[in-house]
């Protein structure tokens, strides 16, 4: 499969938390030919099963939703005020193009006051949140006809191919990891793996890991790997919190990680000569692993991460090599972890 093409398509598709249908449809279509079973649950999670030798149920989860905006108010001149869905740095929104999903899709730009109308003191500060609005170039009456309070707004960004295997775009958090699951999926169709693998594109991660909560209840797995992005190194980012793009996926050592899954991931990576980095993480927060680990009576869980620069901007930057290596690592794990390993997980 052309992973770069899939990354491009998924990234440029709209799928803000709670409204993931377009992105979810796209991945369901790509997974369908490889899956033994595929279904959608009530919240919209896409759940595919790739059967192995039945040594245990492995859940692999990456979220399909992205952060976005929502129409809050249409003012007297037709300018649109908005709320955020997920966490934004408003400084990244100035002069940003968006699509408003009204009765029809409308192109918009996020406006801000020109600097010469600001006091010299205000020019030195970031624009205050309450000054942001969207300009759709239409009069109030027309906007009222096409747009309603609550309509979803997606950030517009074409993927940029950078040097080497690097790409920049929106919603790589976490569609890049959905691509990683797809790379793993493809590999699983070529090998006789031990574990039955449930691949899940989860919804509503950005608003509190909600899709992961219900999908792990539904699947009731023996063990799980949540796959999400971590921060890429960059000036101003602590060296222990910024991972190097192109040096492989990052295995978490935090409280979201079962110690024996951690060891097993490292072991299969070493055997398969798969590069990886380690994250001495002190928290289980911030990814689907948070919800999966405590589903039903508890799940042996771990977290695999993809280094990503500029997270939650529209120019998130990654290295495709890390996606490929991560996919290989997950497939190797499903190949080599066996019944004995799975049965030993609850025994501390």
């Amino acid at each position, binding site marked *: 499969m052309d992973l770069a093409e899939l990354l491009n398509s998924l990234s440029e598709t709209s799928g803000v938390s709670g409204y993931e249908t377009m992105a979810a449809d796209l991945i369901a279509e790509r997974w369908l030919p490889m899956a033994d079973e595929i279904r959608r649950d009530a919240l919209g999670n896409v759940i595919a099963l790739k059967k192995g030798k039945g040594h245990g149920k492995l859940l692999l989860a990456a979220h399909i939703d992205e952060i976005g905006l929502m129409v809050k108010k249409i003012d007297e001149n037709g300018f649109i005020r908005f709320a955020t869905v997920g966490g934004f740095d408003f400084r990244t929104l100035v002069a940003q193009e968006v699509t408003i999903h009204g009765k029809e899709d409308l192109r918009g730009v996020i406006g801000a006051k020109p600097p010469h109308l600001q006091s010299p003191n205000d020019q030195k500060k970031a624009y205050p949140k309450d000054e942001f609005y969207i300009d759709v170039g239409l009069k109030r009456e027309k906007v009222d006809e096409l747009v309603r309070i609550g309509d979803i707004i997606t950030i517009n960004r074409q993927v940029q191919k950078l*040097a*080497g295997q690097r790409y920049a775009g929106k919603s790589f958090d976490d569609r890049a990891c959905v691509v990683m699951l797809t790379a793993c999926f493809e590999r699983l169709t070529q090998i006789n793996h031990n574990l039955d693998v449930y691949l899940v594109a989860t919804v509503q991660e950005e608003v509190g890991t909600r899709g992961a909560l219900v999908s792990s209840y539904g699947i009731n797995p023996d063990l799980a790997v949540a796959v999400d992005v971590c921060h890429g190194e960059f000036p101003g980012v602590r060296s222990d919190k910024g991972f190097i793009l192109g040096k492989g996926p990052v295995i978490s050592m935090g409280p979201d990680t079962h110690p024996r899954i951690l060891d097993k991931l490292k072991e299969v990576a070493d055997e398969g000569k798969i590069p990886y980095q380690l994250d001495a993480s002190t928290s289980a927060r911030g990814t689907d692993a948070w919800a999966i680990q405590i589903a039903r009576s508890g799940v042996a869980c771990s977290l695999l991460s993809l280094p990503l620069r*500029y997270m939650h901007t529209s120019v998130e930057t990654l290295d495709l090599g890390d996606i490929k290596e991560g996919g290989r690592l997950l497939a190797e794990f499903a190949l080599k972890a066996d019944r004995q390993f799975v049965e030993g997980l609850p025994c501390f």
Partner: protein
Amino acid sequence: MFLKELSEARGVSSREQEVRDLIREYIKPHVDEVFTDSLGNLYGVKGKEKKGPKVMLAAHMEEVGLMITSIEKNGLLRFLPVGGIDPRVLVSKPVFIGKEKVAGVIGAKAIHLQKPEERTQVLGFDDLYIDIGASDEDEAKKLVKIGDVATFTTVFGKLGDLCVGKAFDDRAGCTALVELTKLEFNCPVYFVFTVQEEVGLRGAGPAAYRVNPDFCLVLEGTTASDVAGTDEEGYSTTLGEGPAVSVMDRSVIAHPKVVGRLFRLAEENGIPLQNKRTITGGTDAGVIALSREGVPTATVAVPCRYIHSPVTVMNQSDLEHMIKLTELFVHDIAEKGVEN
């Protein structure tokens, strides 16, 4: 009209080649003579032998952009603005660098890693980098050089009743000038596409000296702030109410006779025309008016929201009205002479 093509063409001050080549192709069939000067200004001449006052029409070809000033060990690029760019519009935007259009992005530290007080601070040119995906200095140097310039990547398109694109300042003026070359006038007309307006009105002075016109009109894109959060007195100009005439800005007090003639022609012909209602900024008119012993000059401009950002917004009808008004203006001068 070539608004889309000219908006998407890339030409930062002193690197106007791509835009110049495009305009040269467009105007060649319609003018008697095309030439350039040592600064890079492009001239199209029509009716040189005709009697009557010599009219110069000017628009600047270049746009604001970024210049690569350093390539760091980690492969990231440092940059500075060429012309006036508020760094607040740059965060989270893609750019194309150099002739080869190398793609890069201007990122920012993830919100998750910021302290709350950081979010109110401006990310300035000291804090921003262009990331071209290079893993180190050597890889970066294979793709870009210090001194290369970068532009926004915006694709021109409709925005409701309006349109959106980059560099309408001053490709709107260039588009108007290209259209006007197709018309016939009863006086000599010099169509001048100037360089380096954004870095201090550098190209227009020598061009005016060379042309030595009796009259000059500068066609521009100018600031509009007819948007949410601005009181009406701060609008400066309003989209859809026709082109705007500056009576005064920081560079020039427009010649009252030119301004008067414009408003008279607008009124007689039912063309909307508005006053620019702020006095900030400057245009090529500033240096043209002071050329040799002085030239009666004024600036007519298409109102543009979010000027000098990746997403300039304008109303195409304002551009059409600016073209019509300029046409009438030149005819009027040819017919009635300088004094009326």
